[in-house]
């Protein structure tokens, strides 16, 4: 019985491959990304990929390819599947919205595993986000705080979102304190929160030229003073403009783009890459 395919996996084959390609055989260890692109169908890299998921969570990075590779390996050998890791992959995928990464991961997760309580919760959260039911989403997310706590905050982003807290504290105590010391307790889950807020703003930017303040508030789950500071930050950095709407309501004018301003729609779809035109040069000459 030919077990020759095993040879394809061993390092010696990789070394032999290097030699065959005329390269000096590398004794270096391959990075995870390299492994995923060069040798992805290899059960031996499973542990490394799991560690990589944890690394992505703690260091605010993300790699869809590596995570899909791991989910595939779980599919090939279901005995090695770790629910905890799958949950983390799904949370990271949710944070990647509007990209369809969450669905892509679900396609690879067997039905019995999807029946797990935590994963069911994440599917519900994804459903709310996909159908733009932001109010229901934030309600449900609040109820499942511990599940989402695995993702630590992005400190700078947090400062941007909650400048209000910092400045108030400074006034009261007249002491210079860093945000970290003041509000460490609020950090857990804030990385996730920010990612979803970014998605929410993305959808609003696709749809609205001018969005009423209450709508913005509900979509990103920020109210009152924090919302004021949030808007202030984006007015200063993202080109938002404040306007008076009908009645005494506040309107936020979002930056113009091709999706909320028909005039800006580029008719680039009939453009062609230059290489294609070069193919008829011999004809034209």
């Amino acid at each position, binding site marked *: 019985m030919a077990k020759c395919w095993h040879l394809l996996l061993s390092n010696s084959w990789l070394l032999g491959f290097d030699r065959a390609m005329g390269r000096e055989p590398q004794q270096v260890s391959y990075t995870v990304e390299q492994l995923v692109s060069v040798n992805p169908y290899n059960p031996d890299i499973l542990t490394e990929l799991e560690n990589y998921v944890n690394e992505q969570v703690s260091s605010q990075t993300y790699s869809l390819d590596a995570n899909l590779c791991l989910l595939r390996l779980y599919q090939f050998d279901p005995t090695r599947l770790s629910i905890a890791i799958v949950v983390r992959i799904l949370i990271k995928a949710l944070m990647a919205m509007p990209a369809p990464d969450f669905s892509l991961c679900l*396609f690879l997760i067997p039905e019995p595993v999807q029946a797990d309580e935590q994963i069911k919760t994440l599917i519900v959260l994804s459903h709310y986000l996909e159908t733009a039911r932001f109010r229901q989403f934030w309600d449900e997310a609040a109820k499942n705080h511990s599940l989402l706590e695995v993702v630590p905050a992005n400190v700078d982003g947090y400062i941007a979102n909650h400048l209000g807290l910092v400045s108030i504290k400074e006034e009261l105590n007249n002491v210079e304190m860093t945000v970290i010391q003041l509000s460490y307790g609020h950090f857990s889950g804030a990385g996730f929160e920010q990612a979803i807020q970014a998605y929410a703003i993305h959808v609003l930017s*696709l749809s609205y030229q001018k969005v009423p303040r209450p709508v913005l508030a509900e979509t990103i789950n920020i109210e009152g003073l924090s919302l004021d500071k949030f808007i202030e930050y984006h007015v200063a950095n993202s080109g938002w403009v404040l306007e008076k709407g009908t009645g005494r309501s506040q309107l936020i004018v979002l930056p113009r783009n091709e999706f909320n301003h028909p005039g800006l729609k580029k008719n680039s779809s009939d453009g062609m890459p230059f290489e294609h035109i070069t193919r008829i040069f011999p*004809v034209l000459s």
Partner: protein
Amino acid sequence: MANSYDYDDASFDSRYARPPSSGQGGGAAAELIYDPNFVPDSVKTFVVHLYRHIREKNVYEIHQMYEGSFQRLSDRMFRENPWPSVEAIAPYVDNDHVFCLLYREMWFRHVYARLAPTGQQRVESWDNYCSLFGVVLHGVVSMQLPNQWLWDMVDEFVYQFQSYCQYRAKLKNKTEEELQLLRQYDQAWNVYGVLNYLQALVEKSAIVDILEREKDGLEQFTATDGYDYEGGTSNVLKMLGYYSMIGLLRVHCLLGDYHTGLKCLGPIDISQQGVYMIVIGSHISIIYHYGFANLMLRRYVEAIREFNKILLYILKYKQYHQKSPQYDQILKKNEQMYALLAICLSLCPQSNIIEENVNIQLRDKYNEKMTKMLRYDDEAYAVYDELFTYACPKFITPSAPVLEESLINYNQDAYRLQLKLFLYEVKQQQSLSGLRSFLKLYSAISIGKLAAYMEVDESTMRTILLAYKHKMHSVDSDGKIIPNADIDFYISEDIIHVVESKPTKHYGDYFLRQVLKFEEMISELDRVKLD
């Protein structure tokens, strides 16, 4: 729900519409008459000539024999029996190791196509592929083979893998003997092996580099159809590498990993002419899987565009393939792609993006069903279910079966998961169809009024509007946002302003193709000498 889904290809290969006349029990009876060591004269001549043509690198003759003689002999003499065993014909071909591997590959393919392969035969076929690919990967092959044959090898390899996964997932009625075989040969057709062989072929052939260098004009590949007319170096590894990229796309689709599948196809530019178009089977396979993957990724316009092009192509050229053994498969994939096109257009209606002839065919087959799907009631989901089931790839469960516990059939699990997730997506888009029909009637309307018409409150109305925007804008592989809808809008405080997008016909592309086509015609005419 899954009644029409026929996974049971143990009875016959659904790719060929000729079931064995001997039926299920025919195998045992036929064996009494079949003598694997008897070599009829016609077979003797066949192998001797084929062997000679291969040694002389006469690709044209090889192709004639491979497509023509092999099919004719199979039709005439081997309708119900396998060809003579490789041991019997080996003496006529100098016991050439590589030729024997090639013969065996054709032998097994014949068994799969016309008979029902036994568990033992499935395992032996895997063994043969390992040896054959092993030889090719070691770079010791010097022959040139027709592209059709090389494509068939990869196509068949993936097909037999898919078939084996189905076979070993149906444990309920297996005999003890069959179960013992599964236990003993647990490495046969394992998913790691299959993927690693395809990957190895891609890498060892350096096909990605070749395609890159070709763009800079440093390599002749597409221009010579992959052959080396002057140097005579082997095209086998190169072409197997090329076709393996399509093989990888296909396997990943079978696993449900659409993103990686598309990535594997990356080096092939389907917007341009290429080697993938030479063999119609590879052309159809690429577009079918590419379109399906894009459908699952919600890139509806991209899927529609590609389906449209290939369906038009098939409409024009299928008459030339009527005699070929792939004809039935071409027709089957054609029908499946119309079904997928119907699904795409129901989820994401477009105007004027389909060629007229294709549209006529589509309306002919699916007009009623498409109207039903747009209604989003219970009947609509049944139609989506039906079409998806008919048109989807035969998804597989790649893990090895657990043979100690209760023996059940789980071959439909993978399909059921993909179907469920697809219908879930359809359900999420339920309100969008209603919204679209209202938007078509207005150039501007207040949120309040529209909410009243759609019988929802204002807050829900805003939610539906946002959901429409999100679902109708897909994210491509580079992270760019691509609009898909033909009806769009923007909201200013409380007023919705409707924007109808003009369909973009790719005139530039069209003219380019026509210019090149006419240039070719002119130069051909120039070559004609009139006496």
